[in-house]
Each structure stands twice: as structure tokens, then as C-alpha cells.
């Protein structure tokens, strides 16, 4: 049963790490000589690598906010998990932890949907999606499953 506990924590932390990497690393859209993400657009023009701050459009800022909120809620849920582990009575469910984790996954989903739908405005049509974008979309089901696991988990003495 200790194995189950470790497995659940590893799942949660993995989701959190994916969220962090996806938000921070600049690789949402990759071209042969440029990459861009939520925060900057970096290009290599004739050997010079320079970065400009990203468009200040309304939608990219919404995606930024969603990703940051999902990271915050995932952290809160991890913290609550350890709190509830020591304060729940026997047979209690980790509802609060699960609720926060599911909320985090919903925020990632919203952010991913907004980015996928609205990126015609700030990304040229021929560029391909980078690994940060894919990580964000992987983090969503991971966080969702982790949240559901918390909801059906019960505390045993």
C-alpha cells in the first residue's frame, strides 16, 4: 500500500513537472530557425539569435494566465494532499485534493484549446507545433486522471 501512495505522488509530481516545462521552455511552435512560445518569439536570423516579447494580444495573455493558474492549483493540490494525509479520519476521501487537481487539469485544457484555436492570429500557417505544446496537452489527461484517483482514494489507518 505504500507503493500505491508513492505511485500517486509520482503521478502528481510528473504532471506538475510537465506543466512547468511546458510553460517555461520556449517551444510551442517550432520552425527551422525560429521558436516561439507564450512569452517570446525567438528567431535566428543570419547567425544572430534574438528574442522579442510575444504579441500582446488578448488571447495569448489568456493562455499565459491559464497555464500559470494550472501550475498554482497543482501545487496547492499537492500541498493539500499531504495535509489531508495526516488530518483525515479513517475512511475519509481526498475530495479537496482531487477537486484542486481536476481544476488544474481544466485550466490546462482551456489554455490548450484557446492556443490551438486562436493561434492563426500570431503564428504563420506553415509552422509545426513544438514539444512544449504537446507536453501541455499530455499534462491535461495526466492531471485529470490524478485528480480522479484522489477523489476515489480513501484513507486507511
Amino acid at each position, binding site marked *: *500500500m*505504500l507503493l*500505491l*501512495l508513492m505511485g*500517486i505522488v509520482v503521478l502528481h509530481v510528473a504532471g506538475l513537472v510537465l506543466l512547468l516545462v511546458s510553460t517555461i521552455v520556449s517551444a510551442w511552435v517550432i520552425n527551422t530557425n525560429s521558436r516561439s512560445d507564450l512569452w517570446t518569439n525567438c528567431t535566428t536570423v543570419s547567425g544572430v539569435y534574438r528574442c522579442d*516579447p510575444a504579441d*500582446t*494580444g*488578448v488571447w495569448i*495573455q*489568456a493562455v*499565459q*494566465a*491559464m497555464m*500559470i*493558474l494550472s501550475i*498554482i492549483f497543482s501545487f496547492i493540490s499537492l500541498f493539500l494532499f499531504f495535509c489531508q*494525509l*495526516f488530518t483525515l*479520519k479513517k475512511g475519509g476521501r481526498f475530495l479537496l485534493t482531487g477537486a484542486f487537481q481536476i481544476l488544474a487539469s481544466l485550466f490546462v485544457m482551456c489554455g490548450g484549446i484557446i492556443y490551438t484555436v486562436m493561434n492563426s492570429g500570431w503564428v504563420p500557417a506553415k509552422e509545426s507545433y513544438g514539444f512544449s505544446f504537446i507536453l501541455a496537452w499530455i499534462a491535461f489527461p495526466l492531471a485529470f486522471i490524478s485528480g480522479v*484517483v484522489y477523489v*476515489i*482514494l*480513501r*484513507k*486507511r*489507518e
Partner: protein
Amino acid sequence: MPSGLIPFPFHLFSFHHPSLSRNPSHTDLRGEQREIMLSVLALTSVVLLGIASQTTAIVVYTSWERHALVGTDVRLSCSFFSWQWTSPDVTFSWHYRPDGAKEAISIFHYAGGIPYVDTKGPFRDRMEFVGNPSRRDGSILLKNVDFADNGTFTCDAKNPPDIAGSPSHVRLFVFEKVPVQAGVITGAIIGVVLGLLILIVAIYYLMRFLVARRVFSLSMSKHGRKGKGKEGSQQKQKPKVPLVFISF
């Protein structure tokens, strides 16, 4: 050099110092050392301040960028910092370099207490001096800006005898509609969601507190003082490694 002598704390070294008449304890010596250090520090800072006032130049401040809608009025503010008092011969001058041009033209000059506004250039009849030179403010007001007014405005201020300094630039951007600044919406969304979270938590605890108080007062009125000691003490579980299991 600063005029006047700095009064050196001679009293610390006089023979009639009160601490010498009784046994100098450990704390008295440490207090004395602290006094000496503080006076040396004050002396050094005053000397440095005196030296600094002779070597720093005048510093001119303007905004970094200004954004404006077409047809509105824009106030370009310019101020300066100088160690000297504001002299009556203070001068302000504004230059304008359109986007893409190489040369800047002079559009405003204030000298000898009189503002000279541009009457022949691109801002004729559109510029007004709204500054207050005695308060070190040399701002100008541009009325009814258009797309052709995009460019860099340079403010140069001189406060005799403090004249060495570099001018400061402000870029003007004229838009049809003002774009949202970076991070405003991000911060707003995050703030609203976290605020709602804190609000919900606060309301939950408030409800719990109110309900508990109502239950407590009801039970008090029912049972009198008998059951007072038994409420409120929860059993603490021993913190051994807790185990979890899944059940549907």
C-alpha cells in the same frame, strides 16, 4: 569642498567623560565604539555627498514611450534632477525626429522665462506649453495627434551652472485603437481566480464558525453548564505512516 567644519565628536574623548569616572563595564565600551563608528560614518557620507554634488551632471527624465489614440491630446512630460537650485535662467528644449527620418528638428524652446512654441513646423497651432519651470517641469501638450506624429521626442534641460547632461527621449506611438499592455489581462485573470478561491474559503470557514456557534449556544441553553468540558477536544491520531486504499 563643503564650507564649514563638521563638528567632530570631541566629547567622546574628553577627560570628563562620565564613563571614565566609574568602572568601564563591557557594555559601556561597546556603546562607545558604536558612537565612534556612527560619527565616522556620518563624516564619510557628508564628505562623499559634497564630492558627489560637484561631479554628477543634470539628469533629465521623460517617459519611455507614450501611446495615444488618433485625435486625442498627448502630454509629454519632462523633468530634471540637479544638485543646484533652480536658476532663473533654466532652459528647456524639445526636438522631434519623425520615424524613419535621420535628422531631428527643434520644436520648442523655453529660455529667460518665455516659452517659444513652434509656429512653422509640423506642430504649428497644435502645441502648448503646460510645464512649470520653477518646479522643474518642462512638459508640452500636443493636441489632435495623427499618424504622422509617430516619432521620437527629445527633451533637453539646462540649469545653469549645471549644464552637463544628456537629453532624454520619449517615443510616441499613435494607434487607431490602443493595444492591451503586456501582462494586464494575464494578471487580471489570475487575480480574479485566486480572489474567488480565497473568497470561497473565507465564506466556508465563516459558515462553519457561525453554524458551530449556533449549535454551541443551542446546546448551552439546553444542557446548562454540564457538558462544557467535553466539547471541542478532538482526539489526535498518532502520526504513523498512513496508508491509503482505493475503493469505489
